[in-house]
């Protein structure tokens, strides 16, 4: 993704998706935002990787989101409510998002100096997702939100790493890692409702 208006639009959309993941309480909207976020991450990766290799990430990400969605769909009620050890009110979350943006604005311009292959948009996009994923994992004590936070963090890392490493094995392993996290997340979501096997 080159710098310019399209790049800026994708970045704004990435921030909006990450904010939706953090703030929305309805799991349907959260998974919708996750799916859109994987598409935007795919757009960010395409300048560095061939289209067919980049699409591995898109497919793996969408499958991960679908796995979580199917699991939540089959749960009769909330398996675990957020115990809210930390405040989750919108003003607090908006303030936290601005803090993440502040940190990213300091780090992103320096990142392309480390890696010449990385564009400034990729640095911004990757770091926003990493920061928002960290925030999500740190603020939540529910399994579902922690897993979504981990997936968000990993997709941010994948944008950054794709610019410096274009290996088929890495693409495959990262795809399997995403799917495995979603599978484990699905298991943890329904573990209380599953009958124990002898």
């Amino acid at each position, binding site marked *: 993704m080159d710098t310019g208006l399209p790049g800026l639009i994708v970045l704004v959309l990435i921030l909006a998706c990450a904010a939706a993941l953090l703030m929305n309480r309805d799991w349907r909207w959260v998974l919708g935002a996750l799916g859109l976020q994987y598409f935007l991450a795919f757009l960010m990766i395409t300048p560095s990787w061939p289209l067919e290799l980049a699409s591995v990430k898109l497919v793996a990400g969408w499958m991960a989101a679908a796995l979580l969605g199917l699991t939540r769909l089959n749960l009769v009620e909330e398996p675990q409510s957020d115990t809210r050890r930390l405040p989750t009110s919108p003003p607090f979350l908006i303030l936290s998002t601005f803090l993440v943006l502040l940190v990213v604005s300091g780090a992103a311009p320096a990142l392309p100096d480390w890696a010449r292959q990385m564009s400034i948009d990729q640095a911004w996009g990757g770091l926003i997702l990493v920061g928002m994923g960290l925030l999500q994992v740190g603020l939540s004590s529910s399994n579902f939100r922690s897993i979504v936070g981990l997936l968000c963090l990993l997709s941010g890392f994948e944008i950054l790493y794709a610019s410096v490493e274009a290996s088929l094995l890495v693409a*495959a*392993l990262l795809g399997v890692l995403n799917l495995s996290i979603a599978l484990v997340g699905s298991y943890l979501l329904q573990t209380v409702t599953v*009958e124990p096997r002898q």
Partner: protein
Amino acid sequence: MSSPILWIFLPGLLGVGFLFYRPKDRFPLVVAASVCLFLTWVAWQIPIDVVLNVGPFSFEIFPSLSFFGRSFTLTNAERPLLSFIYLFETLWLLGTVIAKPARLFISVSLICVSLFVAALSVEPFLYAALLIALAVLVLVPLLSPAGKPVGRGVLRFLIFQIFAVPFILFTGWILTGVEASPGDLNLILRSGLFLLLGFTFLLGLFPFHSWIPMLARDSHPYIVGFLLFFLPTISTVFALGFFDRYAWLRDSQFVYQIMTLIGSLSILLSGIWVLVDRHLGRVLGYAAMMGIGYSLLGIGLSGGQGVQIFFALLLPQALGLWVLSASLGSLLDKDPNLTFEGVAATFTSSPLSIAGLLLSVFSLAGIPLLASFPPRIALFNILATQASWAAMLAIVGSLAFAMVGVKLALAVLQRSTRPRSEWVEEAQPVKADAQSEIKDLYSWAFLIIACIGFVGFGLFSRLFLASVPGFASMFPLLFP
């Protein structure tokens, strides 16, 4: 046949196959243990990349296998470690007879071990971080069994292990830059910081250690023990790969000092925490933390000496964790209360498990005549001249850990010498096998193996330590 097919794909596929095996018999255990024992023997006896003639037949184990444009390579240098890994996988499989973890343990442990071996053999070696993360994910369902609420430790463990992946992968990429321009101090500092963070998450070092005792309390001790032995061992060998490949890391005294500091702190803190804890599951977690601390102290000695001490510490640590986990698993099967008082109360029904528990705690603490003592004395001898403060911290931590054994022994003695009440408050249902450990052949076999292992290694350590240079030879630049 190539070595990755033999030591990675064969056990991995066997594990996947047993996931679909439904009958509740011991067929998977017998087959899996036999295959692992066979793989141990092959790694010990058959050279790789050499044509062997057996009668009219000739065969050769090739060292490498291409996969998705990269390769998995296992050479003769890795054979001692492969032999060690599969020997202990056999023991962990056989221990299920008395520890009774979930049935899926056999297949999941095979898949995990094959992923760990894949992590040791993948080229470029940095991708090992991804394979280790996959192995961890495979184990999560066993750590949080169906029907029980998910413990906080499981989720924290999962999060910290996933955090390690980006740090280690990025480190690898930065290190290639350091190789290109070795004088760039900024690059060296960044890579050092990323490497430290990555391995702190991966090994559960202070201050990211909190998942270890939480997981050890909430999950089955045998599964936690398996995880806490294989994960740190493979991760530390992976970390040694960095030292072997990058000269600036190998020659930096600062890095070794940091490792000595973190190692001694881990030992001291785990010793102090274990002293004030009353749950024996958490004692297992702290024992593993102490073992990681000793490994770091060993590597912190720098150069070939450090690698040798690391491998010398590995065998007694492996044996100690196996016996401790199996004893706790056996006790948990009879009584879910794993506090000192709860375990002491089961002495009459589980004397062999408690004997194994005491032996393993004293061995892991480094008490003389037991397995951990000889390599630790060697470590302290060298540390006394290089960093005496670290040796002091480690000794204090070990003594604190030994006190746990004393506390447990006292609890058992007090309980067994207490006069019995004439009154029976309420008739308690007794499990059919609760009284029968003393007649159980498997429990006796387990205790005899544990005794021979601990005392044999303690008294005839030279016999075992002779194989250490063979292990260290997999790092030719670190151990020339």
